[in-house]
């Protein structure tokens, strides 16, 4: 059974500093997704990483995927308050089939303080 682990589960960040959060998973997959969830809201797609070495950037966030290490990182540059949210990674473990099946990590809650 695929396991997806995120750490840390909670991170207090200081405005203006850089941070990295991690997502690792237990079986072979080359499809990994990052989502953001604000309190009481839905999940918003941030990044789709589809191959080993994939790197995507959007604003202050940069995500990368190392399928050999079964690890994805989300790097935050110069944290700002607007980035406070819960970030989920999800891995597709049904890539050979006709349909997608995402297994989510437990999420990392980021809180940016002044």
């Amino acid at each position, binding site marked *: 059974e695929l396991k997806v682990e995120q750490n840390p589960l909670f991170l207090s960040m200081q405005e203006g500093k850089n941070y990295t959060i991690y997502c690792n998973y237990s079986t072979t997959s080359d*499809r990994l*997704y990052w*989502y953001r*969830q604000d309190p009481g*809201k*839905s*999940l*918003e*797609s941030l990044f*789709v990483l*589809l191959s080993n070495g994939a790197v995507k950037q959007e604003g202050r966030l940069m995500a990368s995927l190392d399928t050999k290490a079964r690890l994805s990182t989300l790097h935050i540059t110069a944290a700002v308050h607007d980035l406070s949210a*819960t970030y*989920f990674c*999800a891995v*597709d473990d*049904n890539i050979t089939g*006709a*349909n*997608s*099946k*995402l*297994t*989510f990590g*437990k*999420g990392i809650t980021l809180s940016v303080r002044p």
Partner: protein
Amino acid sequence: DTAVSQTPKYLVTQMGNDKSIKCEQNLGHDTMYWYKQDSKKFLKIMFSYNNKELIINETVPNRFSPKSPDKAHLNLHINSLELGDSAVYFCASSPRLAGASDTQYFGPGTRLTVL
């Protein structure tokens, strides 16, 4: 324009009742999903449908029955509600094109509270 919509947004009901949650997507996607998010924010897939056909049925009690009248709609009916069913239920859809990113787009969620 709402891409994936769910009704109702909030549902408060007594134990033992039967209730339904509706989901509609206007993205033209072929695949739809139901997820349960518990009080610790853990998200787990319950069901997926591809073009009205059940594809994924995780270990979910038989009291939960999905129904897809067409590929734009996926409803969730729950019989004999229990306290442990209290959660936020998210509907999602994805295009499921071969070789594509297959991003899942989530609805706003339905917060179910069983008293």
